């Protein structure tokens, strides 16, 4: 008798649990998921192939104070609009200890224009002064939580690891570098190097979604 009762309760709980689980799954499909880094997280290092064929890791930069990890690609019009500004960021901040490390996150079989060969061509025709790495196997961009190109992650090298300081867009006007009011990334790097609070830690921008 008692056992029956217990069995009944267990069955009931299972039913409730199952329906709850189903509810959770269906609502998860349409709500934002919490993956990737937030400001304050420690970012993982990686070892990815550069357009020159060599593997590159953040730890290769012994004297860096930080890194501008920028997910970008050949094909996205927004990424193209920002190419010259990414080159300018590297020119300005590499000597100050914050080099640009660019990562191409798209699946080249979906985006032939982003193949490794095309990356090499692009890097050489634009004269990239920074590594342009392919995220082979597409493991790094989901870890960082990059969703679009271009998508910038500013990291500061600390005793505890590479701390995420800023996530978002390069500046507030993709159309015209001359009309920019706020240079989000430059402001963030300047504040970081000065040991000050970064004024704007995350920004949003339209970008090309990364092709898995």
């Amino acid at each position, binding site marked *: 008798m008692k056992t029956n009762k217990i069995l009944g309760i267990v069955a009931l709980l299972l039913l409730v649990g199952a329906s709850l689980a189903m509810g959770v799954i269906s609502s998860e*499909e349409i709500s934002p998921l919490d993956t990737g880094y937030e400001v304050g997280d420690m970012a993982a290092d990686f070892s990815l192939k550069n357009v020159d064929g060599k593997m590159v890791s953040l730890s290769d930069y012994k004297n860096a104070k930080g890194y501008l990890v920028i997910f970008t690609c050949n094909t996205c019009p927004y990424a193209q609009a920002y190419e010259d500004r990414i080159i300018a960021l590297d020119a300005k901040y590499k000597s100050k200890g914050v080099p640009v490390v660019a990562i191409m996150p798209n699946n080249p079989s979906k985006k032939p224009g982003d193949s490794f060969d095309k990356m090499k061509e692009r890097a050489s025709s634009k004269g990239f002064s920074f590594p342009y790495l392919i995220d082979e196997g597409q493991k790094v961009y989901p870890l960082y939580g990059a969703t679009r190109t271009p998508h910038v992650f500013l990291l500061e090298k600390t005793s505890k690891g590479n701390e995420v300081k800023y996530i978002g867009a390069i500046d507030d006007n993709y159309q015209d570098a001359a009309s920019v009011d706020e240079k989000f990334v430059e402001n963030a790097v300047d504040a970081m190097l000065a040991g000050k609070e970064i*004024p704007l830690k995350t920004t949003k921008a*339209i970008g090309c979604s990364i092709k898995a």
Partner: protein
Amino acid sequence: MNRLFIVLAVLTLSFSCKDKKVEDKVVAESTMEKNQTTSKNVESDVKFPIYDFDAFEPLLHKDDDNTYVINFWATWCQPCIAEMPHFEQVYAEQKDNNVKVILVNLDMPNMWKSRLEPYVEKKNIQSEVVILDDPKQNVWIPKVSEEWGGAIPATLIYNKDKRSFYERGFTYEELNQELSKFTK
């Protein structure tokens, strides 16, 4: 199917902005004027209305009996183009059921004549097409939805009672299923 769906959702939705207080800076008026004048000669004969966000925003807050499907897209965005027929089909099937579809184009100004117009013409797009031309994306993206990181395709479905935002692409079935939560 479900699993594929979740994987896709993870990929497209993974950027969730935790620092909600993104500085809500009002766009300086001088900048807006500058943008309008710089794009004026390009836009003079474009077939679609061109809005900055202030002019566009009322489309996100209509208080009538319609359900609005607001799709943010661009001709250079492959998954946007892939889902476009589903929006057209839904519009064709449900326009008499108080469903309005507005395709909000985010092409760059130099693509309006060269890409947008030919695309809409070639595909014989029947839904309403408007151009949102406002480079201050960090200001307006959160005003569309706090959930939106900025990746497209993205879609807002709303009526006067409820609204949902989706930072991902749709199949026809998925779009219909979401829309059915709004239309009775």
